[in-house]
């Protein structure tokens, strides 16, 4: 039963991700990216990570994409057909990363990997709930959590300073 949800969702993710880099108009790219993020939220639900699924919808598909849309509208970017052109300097790098991905897929498919951790663990009732993740976040990872809050503060101040108009 799970397969009937997993494969359409992952196909939708991949199609929308290709749509992001193929579209010539930035607005269509942004809408495709929203679709990909919603599909990924569905995959997170399949993995019993409900808190992460909700955060994916709220933070990524909500806040970050609104920021993208806002900047695209603010700069009044038109669809530029000339923009979709291969950069000759990067073709070598792109093919190297293709080789990397083929190697990675070969390793994932290879035996020895799936035998160890391929079997799903028996999950407790509380797996992926806000309480379970939050408990870990505020005990073992409390220092990274505080550092992340400082990082967000710095980013907020930096964005305001950078985007401010010059007063002279």
């Amino acid at each position, binding site marked *: 039963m799970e397969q009937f949800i*997993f494969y359409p969702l992952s196909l939708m993710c991949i199609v929308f991700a290709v749509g992001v*880099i193929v579209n010539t108009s930035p607005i269509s*790219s942004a809408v495709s990216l929203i679709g990909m993020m919603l599909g990924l939220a569905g995959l997170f639900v399949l993995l*019993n*990570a409900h808190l992460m699924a909700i955060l994916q919808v709220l*933070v990524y598909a909500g806040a*970050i994409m609104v920021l*993208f849309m806002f900047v695209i509208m603010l700069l009044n970017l038109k669809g530029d057909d000339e923009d979709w052109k291969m950069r000759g300097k990067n073709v070598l790098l792109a093919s190297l990363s*293709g080789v990397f991905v083929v190697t990675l897929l070969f390793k994932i498919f290879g035996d020895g990997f799936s035998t160890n951790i391929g079997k*799903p663990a028996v999950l407790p009732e509380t797996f992926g709930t806000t309480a379970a993740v939050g408990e870990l976040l505020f005990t073992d990872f409390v220092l990274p959590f505080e550092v992340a809050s400082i990082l967000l503060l710095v980013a907020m101040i930096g964005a305001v300073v950078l985007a401010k108009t010059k007063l002279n």
Partner: protein
Amino acid sequence: MVPLSHYLIVSAILFFIGVLGVLLRRNVIVVFMSIEIMLNAVNLSLIGFDRFLNQHDGQVFSFMVMAVAAAEVSVGLAIIISIFRKKPTINLDEFNIMKW
């Protein structure tokens, strides 16, 4: 039950699409979106490993990835706006004003 390797394959394909977007596109907004695709692909494999190892560490990591992505996007888009004010283009190949 879908095996872990299928989640990892989806994650690798999404990461590769993101790399292609960064390498081949010249529109700086689309390059930013490709970086977001890569971060999301990494989140998928972190949470997939979490599910199959019965731990929550990966979810905390992907929480941190989301925080860093939010910070990166806000600062990056502010930089794009301030460059755009000086020189009205979003073509990456023309962004060479930091070179000296």
